[in-house]
């Protein structure tokens, strides 16, 4: 029964993201726009672009993740769906996990998959594209989990999006640091690629546990 409820939650959020007004494709377009604007600002210096390319992709991913996060729980709080979820025979932690999973499938996963393509815009070579894509795949769940805490905290605040960004961005810094350093380690350097990647994976696992518990607690004690 629990699995059925969780499946229903994930399916509903995916359907909502795909319908009109959903944020499904929006964060991907936003990601593309940030990446596309950077070469205009820096000029056509291909060496410079390919050196800072992974950092640009990661920064864009962090910003694109923030898009739509404010509505993750707020929309359900406003229309009363959260009352339904309180009454479901499922712990609030699992509800959070299902919603975060659906959100990551519509934002983080497309970002990671599109990263090699967008890497072309910042002159990344094949190895760097693959490395950045892999680090985004491993690291973006951490961003979503961290964001979910801020989203749960600001669920009952009107126009809480800006507060959310201010609360959440500093907490995303460790993920950003290790995501970029893993991507750059793949291009050569003193540190082997797997070291920062392992730390990034650890950050994702920690964020998964702490974020789920914290967001559920924030939703329970929202008033």
């Amino acid at each position, binding site marked *: 029964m629990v699995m059925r409820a969780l499946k229903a939650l994930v399916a*509903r959020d995916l359907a909502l993201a795909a*319908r009109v007004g959903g944020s499904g494709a929006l964060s991907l377009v936003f990601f593309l726009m940030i990446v596309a604007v950077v070469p205009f600002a820096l000029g056509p210096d291909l060496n410079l672009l390919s050196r800072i390319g992974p950092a640009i992709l990661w920064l864009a991913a962090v910003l694109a993740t923030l898009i739509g996060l404010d509505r993750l729980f707020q929309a359900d709080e406003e229309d009363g769906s959260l009352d339904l979820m309180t009454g479901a*025979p499922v712990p609030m932690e699992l509800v959070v996990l299902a919603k975060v999973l659906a959100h990551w499938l519509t934002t983080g996963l497309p970002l990671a998959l599109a990263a090699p393509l967008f890497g072309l815009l910042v002159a990344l070579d094949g190895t760097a594209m693959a490395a950045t894509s892999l680090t985004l795949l491993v690291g973006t769940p951490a961003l979503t989990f961290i964001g979910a805490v801020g989203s749960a905290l600001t669920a009952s605040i009107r126009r809480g999006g800006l507060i959310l960004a201010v609360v959440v961005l500093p907490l995303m810094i460790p993920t950003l640091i290790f995501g970029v350093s893993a991507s750059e380690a793949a291009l050569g350097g003193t540190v082997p690629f797997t070291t920062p990647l392992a730390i990034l994976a650890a950050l994702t696992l920690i964020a998964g546990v702490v974020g789920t518990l914290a967001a559920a607690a924030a939703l329970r004690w929202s008033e």
Partner: protein
Amino acid sequence: MRLTAQNLTVRRSGRRIFSDVSFTLDAGEALMVTGRNGAGKSTLLAVLAGRLKPEAGTLTVAKVGEATLPECLHVVGHRDGLKSPLTAEENLAFARDLLGMPTASPRAALEELGLGHALKLPVAYLSAGQRRRVALARLLVCRRPLWLLDEPTAALDVASQGVLAGMMARHRAEGGLVIAATHQALGLDGARELRIAPARPDARASQTAATGDVWW
């Protein structure tokens, strides 16, 4: 199922809403919660639904096995819990899967409320009364012993009010409980009335307000 509330006291944002509300409700019984606007009717329902913590008092349920109170009830309130982009059928199917204990199909539930034609329509296209009827159809798609209804007849036409009265009567005949916050007669025969009186002036509440503890 039996629901017992003892000496419930609720405070929101430092302001005491009501205090010492007690009642017992047995299988088949109904309770009408009345009171002036702002007396705390919806707040009481939010406490029962587990969305608010009472400051004092206890809520206990008996004869429901291991289920907790929020798992035994349906809520239909002003916030209807419907997603506008999804169709009526999708909304009801979601509620059925989420809440468990499925009974009627979304189609059968909607037809009972006279909305069979709206099955495949996005809820955004429906009028306020039709939305309310979709929310009420949730009561039928899965079985839960306690119905919490917050002004269930708001925006409903006379025919639908009759249907709702019939639904509530059948639910009570099957041993269900109904708690409705309302200003109107709902056709609940033999319902008891709980009138929520304004809270007593309370020294602590005025003190917290005076010290600026609550700044939002």
